[in-house]
């Protein structure tokens, strides 16, 4: 069983995004970038399946700038076997390469790699779209099990528990299939130093986005990017009585 895991390089989740002064996007110069947390969960799930003897090879793919190599190496340090970088100089958060482009590139890579399963993050925490997995499943004509909190692999199928609006739902999908991860699926491991060293010598193929022959003209135009409206500063109250009074007589919400 071969598993393919797409990973994206994004602004670290601990860093607060700053809007560029010219209103064209978010400033990504000299800030900490990391693997998208949901993708890290996807890598962890794949590695666990390999450790359990259910998978034989894990291939990670990243579409992004040359530095996305680091993202691939991070996944390899967790246990992925091999990487493919699809390099682009376009933005991958806003106004450049969009989820539909990514899905089309992944579709081509999947055509060559023929994995039995694709595990990917449910959303990337930069553009927060939550689209790519579902799009890829559609392009491939595969079933999708999104927002997964539990995956049980069977013979030629997977039983996946999903986090839905009202609780949990379990689906059985035939393989190959797309699974997208939610937060509760697992807790990603920290890569140990020897594994980080080992990851440096794992095979990583470099490709250019142009090689895929996909029209990457944006379908969405970013007109502007602005700071959200700031909430007016509030006050601290000393007692519960004061709080009740404010809520009743000032805010009038109770």
């Amino acid at each position, binding site marked *: 069983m071969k598993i393919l895991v797409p990973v994206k390089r994004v602004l670290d*989740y601990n860093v*607060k*995004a700053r809007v560029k002064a010219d209103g064209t996007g*978010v400033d990504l110069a000299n800030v900490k970038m990391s693997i998208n947390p949901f993708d890290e969960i996807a890598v962890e799930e794949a590695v666990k399946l390999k450790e359990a003897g259910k998978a034989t090879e894990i291939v990670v793919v990243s579409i992004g700038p040359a530095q996305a190599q680091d993202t691939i190496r991070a996944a390899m340090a967790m246990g992925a076997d091999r990487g493919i970088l699809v390099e682009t100089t376009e933005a991958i958060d806003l106004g450049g390469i969009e*989820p*539909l482009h990514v899905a089309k590139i992944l579709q081509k890579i999947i055509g060559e790699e023929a994995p039995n399963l694709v595990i990917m993050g449910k*959303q990337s*925490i*930069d*553009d*927060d779209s*939550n*689209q*790519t*997995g*579902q*799009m890829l499943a*559609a392009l491939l*004509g595969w*079933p*999708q099990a*999104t927002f997964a*909190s539990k995956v049980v692999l069977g013979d030629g199928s997977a*039983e996946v528990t999903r*986090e*839905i*609006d*009202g*609780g*949990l*739902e*379990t*689906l*059985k*999908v*035939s393989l190959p299939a797309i699974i997208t991860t939610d*937060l*509760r699926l697992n807790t990603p491991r920290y890569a140990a130093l020897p594994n980080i060293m080992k990851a440096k010598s794992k095979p990583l193929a470099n490709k250019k986005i142009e090689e895929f022959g996909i029209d990457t003209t944006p*379908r*969405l*135009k*970013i*007109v*502007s*990017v*602005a*700071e*959200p409206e700031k*909430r*007016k500063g*509030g006050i*601290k*109250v000393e007692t*519960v009585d004061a*709080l*009740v009074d*404010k*809520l009743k007589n000032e*805010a009038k919400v*109770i």
Partner: protein
Amino acid sequence: MAILVLAEHDNKSLKSSTANTVTAAAKIGSDVHVLVAGKGCDEAAKAAAGLAGVTKVLQADDAAFEHGLAEHVTEALKSVAGNYSHILVPATGYGKNILPRLAALLDVQPISDVMAVENETTFKRPVYAGNAIATVQSLNSKHLLSIRTTGFAAAGAGGSAAVEKISASGSSINVTFVGQELSKSERPELAAAKVVISGGRGLGSGENFAMLEKLADKLGAAIGASRAAVDAGYVPNDYQVGQTGKVVAPQLYIAVGISGAIQHLAGMKDSKVIVAINKDPDAPIFGVADYGIVGDLFQIVPELTEKI
């Protein structure tokens, strides 16, 4: 051309998110149709027809649509997509699961989490956990949007649209529904409640959420939670408020034992009035709270419940 809204429902009743999405559609154009895809979904279809602003309801009734699986519902949408300039879904787990699948089949790049309509093709949406707001123009030939329910008031009653049955069938893709485990609650829907009380890691256990329940009983509130409280198993996953959970904007949001991480704020900072109860005076939640009270939640919450 008309605008199509995909209804979110459980065959018997509509989810409130459908009514918010209809309002967004009405801001784009005046001919708003609703597709109800389900099994034995007459009641849901009737409810959709009664929403103000809806001009027609399409009902696709087939066993394949019973559980709202994306592979199948996408087929129903695809069969009518040609008649519409815009297709809108609620930006809930349900809508987000389906819309991108349809979009790829139509070769459209959709726009997620629309919070405001500027004009027929230009929309505002939050990115980076709401730390930036992007104004985005769709250059697609058809526009596919998921709608943030908090950005649009729910459409009221008073509609009397005709219900037209359409024949649509599911996909041949091999996916089967195994089961569901829904959280039971007599409380209002989290995303639509006027008052929300959320608990965080500070609650310390699932049992301690009973304390919030008492306060919620008095206020007719829904209960939410931070990711940390869900991860720790205090409450089910569908309680999570935030960037990657539910987005709420009630009249009153009370955050109890929640620090106020960016990802949590993304889901609640558009609430009208925010109250924070936290023992750490420097907790970031106080930065967005209208009223903060520093202290031990185990004392403050019971006292508040008594005095409110």
